[in-house]
């Protein structure tokens, strides 16, 4: 009985621990994404992509990386190739964690999360 009472006692260390975990959870989950899609053209298909939603049946490529810029560098250029030469859809995702990371490092560390779908190949 005594032990039980001790176990239920307010524990500041535990509270701070959960607060930190909760804050990290919020930082990493606080995010949004923006999708830019081409009015014309057809997405590159993927017949074995059965995921639910917008990307179902489409050949999705993802860029998920962190870039460390050198002192004099100020921009990031990611080069990708689409067989038809065009993107059909590009979606970028911004998380609170990535924004904070960039802010703390004065823009020198940038977290990049991008999804894209190429235009379907055509003989035109």
């Amino acid at each position, binding site marked *: 009985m005594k032990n039980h009472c001790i176990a239920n006692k307010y524990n500041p260390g535990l509270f701070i621990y959960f607060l930190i975990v909760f804050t990290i959870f919020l930082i990493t989950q606080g995010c949004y994404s923006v999708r830019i899609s081409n*009015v*014309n*053209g*057809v997405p590159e*298909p993927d*017949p*074995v992509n*059965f995921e*639910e*939603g*917008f990307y*179902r*049946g489409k050949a999705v490529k993802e860029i998920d990386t962190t870039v460390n810029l050198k002192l004099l560098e100020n921009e990031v250029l990611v080069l990708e190739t689409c067989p038809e030469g065009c993107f059909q859809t590009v979606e970028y995702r911004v998380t609170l964690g990535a924004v904070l990371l960039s802010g703390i490092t004065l823009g020198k560390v940038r977290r990049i999360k991008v999804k894209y779908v190429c235009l*379907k*190949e*055509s*003989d*035109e």
Partner: protein
Amino acid sequence: MADTKTYFIGQWDTFHNNGPFPTRILYDMRLEQSANMPSFFDRFNDAAGEVQQLIQDCINHNERFRAYGSGWSLSPIAHQRDRMLFTGRMNLKRIIEPDDLYPFSTFDPNDLIFFQCGNTIKEVSEFAAGRGKSLKTSGASNGQTIGGGISTGIHGSALDEGAVQDSIAGLNLIIGPGPEDIVYIERHSKPALNNGFAKKINARVIRNDGLFYAALVGLGSFGFIHGVLIETENLFLLKRYTRKIKPRQALDLAETLNFADSEFNIPSELDPDGKGTRPYHFKIFINPYNKKEDYVAEIMFKKDYRSDYPNPIPEIKKAIYKDLPTWMARFAEKHSRLIPKFIGALNGQIFPNLDHDVEGTLREIFWDTTHKGPAFAFTFGVDIQDTRKALNLFIRVANEEGPVPGAMALRFVKASQATLAFTRFPMTCIVEMDGILWKGGENIISMEDFEKKLLEAYIAAGIRFTIHWGKNAAWSFPGLVDYMYGNNDDVWKDYRSALLSKQMADLFSNDFLNTVRLSDYRVNTPEHLVDNLLQ
């Protein structure tokens, strides 16, 4: 050489999550790069050779074979347990030159385009638009492949244009692995291409109306559709209006399509005598759970093309593709009595925005849609004279046996000459309910039972009907195809048996064809049925 990737997939699903269905192998074929093989005919014939090799491999392993495109059908018509070939990358296109035309053809070569099977409706439309041309009609969206679309009979609501297959002038089929197994079929009464073109695609020519119309809506079972010749027309604009309409006015119009004398009209679309002009497209949206509510009419008029119209896509994106939210199905399974309240509350979300007039080309008005979760569609075709009776009966069943999570619409299309066309009445009214898939339980009827109740009610009331081949239905209902098509299913089987060997007829069959009893092979069918009737 074309390259085929093999997936031992285990199970396959439709675009709208109507499966999953057990499937052993899925083939994904890529064409040879145009840089390595610049000639259209070389690439097209190379792909044909690859398909024939896949067919031969199926023969060697005693397995069945089925091609499919975007998998948009909600029925299992595209499914095959053994081997499925995804055709979505087979998208060659070729304009027709005057030299390709049959000597006495009545077609204008400028209107004809030859497409490989895996071109989607959007690709077809964009290629045509680049040449100042348009499809005559399309479905409500543009993601179906042309091969899959015509073989299941997709349609829009273009009153006097017919379904998509009615614009087809010629069909190129692969019916086996041998050199004589590539055929080009067109009407002998309306030939389009000459023998020289057929020779370039290594095809033997069969000009035969009966065979052409049977193969046109071939349900993926008349062989592999490799190419189609489409008749297009000059680009045009559609002016789209959405208005409230009284149920009585809507149903009077639906049963007659007499727009000249209707009380419902669009003031800016009257003739000099003040009478309503005949629209290109007419569709009525209905909430089946509220008798007092007005319907919504979507009406479009055909206009000459001009380039100075505002971009319609932003409005179309908001206006057309409205779906019930997926969460509603989960909720409905537990609290089905609340479905009518939800549909009433979400009316503005489900039906098109009222009084938002838009103008655009066919390809812009019937633009993209994306996957929004598991979906169902019950789609009956009835003679327009039976519209009121068929609609009221559907609504009665939905209210008495349901409610179920869907909203209704009526569309209208003239008759197709295809033997198994869903649009087979002189003017077909399409009575449809679209919604989100639900599971039956203690609180809600199962979808399968609901489908049966609908069929029983229609048959008991003596309503003649068809069902869209690509939509949900109790397809195993006894005698269903006979009831819908009379002798036409026999005609279809005869032509199929005359064109295909018994082995190939079996290879191109699937569970769906067995279920609807169209896979029978008729051994004694006379071969002359598929003779070339015009050299």
